[in-house]
């Protein structure tokens, strides 16, 4: 292609059309803050981990259990809590491992893969927490249903009804609440990372297409 080779010649000769940056300016640049997406992912990830860890620690079920005089269950929750801490530590290790792997001297494809993997780790952590909260919520409702005296009206109705209308409505409301709750988070993350990583995702797809 003639025109491209013409451009190639001009391109290679082109060494003096740029305003040269002085050593002083380069020194100044070295001490400026980076605004790369890797940095944003790190900041957002640390905030997310702090937030979700705080939520899972503050989400203390002991008082709730005591209220319904089911202290025997507390020991199970203790175990669950330790399990939770182990997951947090494991997750932080994984995140750190993925994060330090990100290198701008790697090939473009590997760099993109590493960034996306780091981000995915955080996403899995968030899903894990959401899952735990959903399970706790459902469990909490079941506990309330069986132990909370306020629920006896509902229990009576379900027991004495010939059809299972009340039971279905109760389950339906529970299910709907869960779906809406999880759905809202899904939307939030879709938007947050969608905006942040739109360019990267597009370029990654484009790059993968070449090797198809």
């Amino acid at each position, binding site marked *: 292609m003639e025109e491209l080779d013409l451009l190639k010649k001009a391109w290679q000769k082109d060494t003096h059309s740029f305003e040269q940056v002085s050593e002083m300016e380069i020194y100044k640049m070295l001490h400026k803050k980076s605004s790369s997406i890797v940095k944003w992912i790190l900041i957002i990830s640390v905030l997310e981990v702090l937030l979700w860890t705080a939520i899972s620690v503050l989400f203390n079920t002991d008082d709730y259990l005591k209220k319904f005089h089911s202290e025997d269950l507390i020991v199970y929750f203790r175990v669950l809590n330790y399990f939770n801490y182990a997951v947090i530590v494991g997750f932080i290790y994984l995140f750190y491992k993925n994060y330090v792997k990100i290198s701008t001297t790697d*090939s*473009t494809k590997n760099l993109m893969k590493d960034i996306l993997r780091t981000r995915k780790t955080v996403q899995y952590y968030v899903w894990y927490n959401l899952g735990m909260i959903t399970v706790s919520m459902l469990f909490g409702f079941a506990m309330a249903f069986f132990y909370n005296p306020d629920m006896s009206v509902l229990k009576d109705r379900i027991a004495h009804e010939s059809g299972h209308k009340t039971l279905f409505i109760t389950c339906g409301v529970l299910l709907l609440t869960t779906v809406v709750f999880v759905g809202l988070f899904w939307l939030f993350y879709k938007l947050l990372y969608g905006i942040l990583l739109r360019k990267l995702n*597009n370029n990654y797809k484009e*790059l993968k297409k*070449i090797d198809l």
Partner: protein
Amino acid sequence: MSDSLEQIFVKQLKENQNIIHKICRLYTNGEDAHKDLFQEVTIQLWKAFPKFRGESKFSTWAYRVALNTAITLYRKSTRSISTVEFESRKHFISQEDYNHEEEEQIKLMYEAVQQLNDIEKALVFMYLEDKDYTEIAETLGITEVNARVKINRIKGKLKKILNP
């Protein structure tokens, strides 16, 4: 100790800055975005510099980091074409000793290249820099055969842009 590393880096970067300017001009519109990307590339290069062993030339090492920064790390969108950028492109073309027709062809070609997507631009950049297919493939992380095929396709695409 770190001072002298900084000095070496600054000196090397100053001497090799044109290749980074070329990438910045390819991926941004206008002077501000150009400077912004140049700064981000400088920061990324400095971060990676302690691991630079001098096995390859500084310029080879630097353009890889610069391309990765432009394609992957840099956040600002580079899609819209502004009038400011048009002026700077004119400047790029008119300083050489080409006849009017050739000058016009070069200008149109560069404008066509600007319309390509980020990955295609990277391929064209390395083609214009006369990099071999092994290096092109390695830089992007694709196979050599596919790099060759893709560059031929891009040539076709550019032809279409120029002669719709």
